């Protein structure tokens, strides 16, 4: 989709006339994007740079000279042609844009004071710049029940909706699950789920973020803050190893919201719901420490260090190392606020410097006793590159050990992985052939799944080696009786055939008829229909 278009473009450059000045654009570039790069912002609602344009809202109408004179043309839908003459500001364009904005507001409830979007709303912002200052609409507005829950996380207010199709396009094009779509026609067009199926997507929060009005709101953020009151820092999501760029927003020392930031190499602005909404656990007010839940009893044994005093917990996501938490300190909102040290058999609260000194002393003792090789460090697979680098620097430069890892040996063997050529997400998304050795990427690395799904929908061919069908598998794939087997190929089968040797069984025409697998016994909330 967007990825492939970008690589094709880079080659050729065109010149066109924008409001009387000469401007360059890449071949295939949309007029609205080229104009914006040249400093001319054309108003828009339905256009989103990461999705295919639909030209529906008509806000971006500009005059484009053609064989039959200037025609009002949606700037989000036309590609720049060499020599194109565009007028974005004449009387006719202005009137058309003012008219569209006034039409959008006709049935909009204007309940901005109680709307989450107020203060960061494209409709609100563009109302200040376009359309009449006072409404000429004195009729009864369209009414819907408001809001309705379309999932546990997302609420839909159909009165506020301006039918821009951003959310429905995201669901269908980007996430690949068209669980929401338009129903009805004319004024009665509304976004709707299927009658018996909720909007049950791992990516539903993105629709809330890209909604240009307050039609879609998220239950965790709803009514918690006004956008202008929020403090914001840019950060990296640590919910999985993808490392999506996020804006972490907080108010009164509590996290209120995470938004995806559009970074070209990683997440293109998207987040999974786990990453987007997991911040709630940080704000959680549950018991700081207490009896270990039964299901964590076993894990406690695995991860508990021989000598508790030699470990300083990093205080990662609460619950993950709950056993240590009890041992090594007092936690608030998932964060270690008071370390403890074992003195004469008793754990006693100590200062940070004393705790760190004790930890350093423990490491030094181990090093003296068994050499630097006796010390090993596990950083964690979800660290940012910077943190991982710091861990490695500590291990190799300070302690002097090469025993540093990111995981507990539950992944692929390090010697195998390190032997493979490496690729960035972008390189993978542009590869002619992808071989997937993982489980289901949508479950494990959700946003990487979105990137690779876009690639596989485009020119990339996919070979999956997996015991079960995954969300990336083509619909015809069924599970073989014995695992693991190469699943199937997907994408154009002609250009680059399956890898020699590896893919002897990957005959795209072979579609074994195997009965659907029994779904694993998960709680209802997390159950998904098997992707078959």
């Amino acid at each position, binding site marked *: 989709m967007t990825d492939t278009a970008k690589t094709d473009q880079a080659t050729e450059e065109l010149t066109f006339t924008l409001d009387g000045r000469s401007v360059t654009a890449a071949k295939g570039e949309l007029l609205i994007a080229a104009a914006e790069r040249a400093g001319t912002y054309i108003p828009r609602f339905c256009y989103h740079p990461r999705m295919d344009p639909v030209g*529906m809202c008509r806000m971006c109408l500009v005059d484009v000279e053609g064989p039959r004179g200037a025609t*009002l043309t949606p700037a989000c*839908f036309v590609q720049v042609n060499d020599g194109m003459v565009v007028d974005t500001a004449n009387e*006719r364009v202005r*009137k058309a844009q003012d*008219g569209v904005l006034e*039409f959008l507001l*006709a049935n909009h409830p204007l309940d901005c004071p109680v709307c989450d979007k107020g203060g960061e709303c494209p409709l609100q912002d563009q109302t200040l710049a376009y359309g009449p200052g006072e409404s000429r609409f004195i*009729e009864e507005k369209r009414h819907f029940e408001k809001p309705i829950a379309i999932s546990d996380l997302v609420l839909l207010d159909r009165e506020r909706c301006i039918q821009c199709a951003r959310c429905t396009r995201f669901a269908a094009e980007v996430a690949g699950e068209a669980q929401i779509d338009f129903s009805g*026609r004319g004024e009665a067009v509304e976004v709707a789920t299927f009658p018996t199926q909720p909007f049950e997507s791992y990516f539903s929060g993105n629709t809330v973020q890209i909604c240009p009005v307050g039609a879609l709101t998220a239950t965790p953020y709803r009514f918690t803050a006004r956008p202008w009151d929020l403090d914001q820092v840019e950060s990296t999501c640590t919910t999985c190893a993808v490392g999506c760029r996020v804006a972490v927003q907080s108010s009164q020392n509590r996290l209120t919201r995470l938004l995806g930031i559009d970074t070209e190499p990683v997440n293109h602005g998207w987040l999974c719901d786990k990453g987007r909404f997991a911040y709630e656990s940080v704000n959680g007010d549950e018991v700081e420490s207490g009896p270990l839940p039964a299901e964590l009893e076993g894990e406690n044994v695995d991860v508990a260090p021989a000598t508790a005093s030699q470990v300083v917990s990093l205080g990662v996501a609460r619950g993950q190392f709950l056993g240590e938490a009890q041992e090594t300190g007092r936690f608030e909102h998932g964060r270690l606020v008071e370390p403890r040290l074992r003195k004469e058999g008793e754990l006693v609260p100590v200062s940070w410097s004393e705790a760190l000194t004790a930890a350093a002393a423990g490491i030094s003792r181990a090093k003296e006793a068994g050499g630097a090789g006796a010390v090993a460090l596990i950083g964690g697979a979800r660290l940012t590159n910077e943190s991982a680098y710091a861990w490695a620097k500590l291990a190799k430069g300070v302690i002097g050990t090469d025993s540093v890892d990111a995981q507990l040996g539950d992944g692929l063997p390090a010697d195998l992985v390190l032997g493979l050529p490496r690729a960035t997400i972008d390189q993978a998304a542009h590869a002619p052939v992808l071989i997937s050795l993982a489980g289901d990427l949508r479950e494990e690395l959700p946003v990487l799944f979105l990137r690779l799904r876009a690639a596989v929908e485009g020119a990339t061919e996919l070979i999956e080696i997996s015991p079960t069908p995954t969300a990336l598998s083509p619909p015809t794939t069924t599970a073989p009786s014995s695992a693991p087997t190469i699943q199937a190929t997907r994408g154009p089968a002609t250009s680059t055939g399956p890898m020699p040797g590896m893919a002897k069984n990957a005959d795209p025409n072979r579609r074994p008829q195997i009965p659907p697998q029994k779904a694993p016994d998960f709680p209802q909330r997390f159950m998904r229909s098997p992707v078959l």
Partner: protein
Amino acid sequence: MAITDAPKIITSRLGYDDSYTIERYLASGGYEALRKALSMTPEAVAAEVDAASLLGRGGAGFPAGRKWSMLRKNPLTYLVINGDESEPATFKDHMLIEGDPHQILEGVLISAYALQVSQAFIYLRGEFALGLERLQQALNEAYAHGAVGADIFGSGFSLDVVVHPGAGAYICGEETALLESLEGKRGFPRIKPPNFPAAIGLYGEPTVVNNVETMANIPWIITNGGAAFAALGAGRSTGTRLFALAGHVRNPGNYELEMVKTTFRDLIYAPVLGGGIRSSNKLKAFIPGGVSAPWFGPDQVDLPLGQDEVGDAGSMLGSGSVVVMDSATCMVRASWRITKFFSRESCGQCTPCREGAGWLERILFRIENGAGREEDLDLLMDLCDNISPGVNWPPQQTTICVLGPSIPSSIASGIRMFRDEFLVHVKDGGCPFD
């Protein structure tokens, strides 16, 4: 001007009770034109249609032969026939489909041969239950007769035809919405450019979309030659055309008339045609080409029934539907009723049409029911201008398809021609016709 003795080209069988059967069709020379066409080269068949200068009968009036010759440069994949006739007061295709389905099929077969496509679809309005039954029956009979399917009449040419009923949306008569619907999607019109069906049509393949009545003309043209067809009518408007006469005339109905040679006065007043205005009332206004067309007043009743003649006068012959309104008609109510139709049938894709139609309808309803304000007239015109800049004909548009600029026609005509009547509604606080 007068009613001419031009031959009945497409309605010749409609007088028979069994006009829709293959027996009647074969007994009156049916499928002979197809045999003749199959003995000619595809180019020669297309040349006959081009020579006839048959204008497309769907509303836009583009010459069918020219459309074909432009498209024949590239290989075509599909021929799609638009039988989604859904506009109020337009009922010509309805009668052709129910009355003579084989004639349409033969036209489709000949056209497919000329265009060298092997798959055709006929998209039929979902409400045409009898039409669907008869067309499907005719298709089955034609398959059994060897006129459709593989190796038609031993010629080596093969064509499959699928009849597909719509699901009740006026917008699916717009050709790109029709293609979306045929693909199983919502009937949202596509943006042109670039999605012209000839380039990116059904399933993304080059596609020709023609109207039912256009197809019905093809067998006669092949049998009698394009020149014979072109000899009828005048100027660009050749042959005959089926006019659906509706409204306050004594004899509403479908009339096949020679183009240009006949006038609106003939159609409305001739005893064998419309028979004059009901109850001896006076003609107040008429719509020359379907409810999306601007209205004409009594002073334009002598205009000939010709595409360019009507176009030059500021409206269109459009779908061939002529709606007559007599002196007892409330023009606010007429505007409101037409606007309500467009409001209900807007697909909801573009903002100006989706929101504008509903807004306009509400204002008109308010005026008709006595709650109008004088400034509402300017507001109506300005909102129309925001849907169709300039509110002229042929129209500009801020929307994707032409449903948008169809909305202002009745409102602008009503206000421009009958401003006083609108103002009486406002001043009297109600409708003077109630």
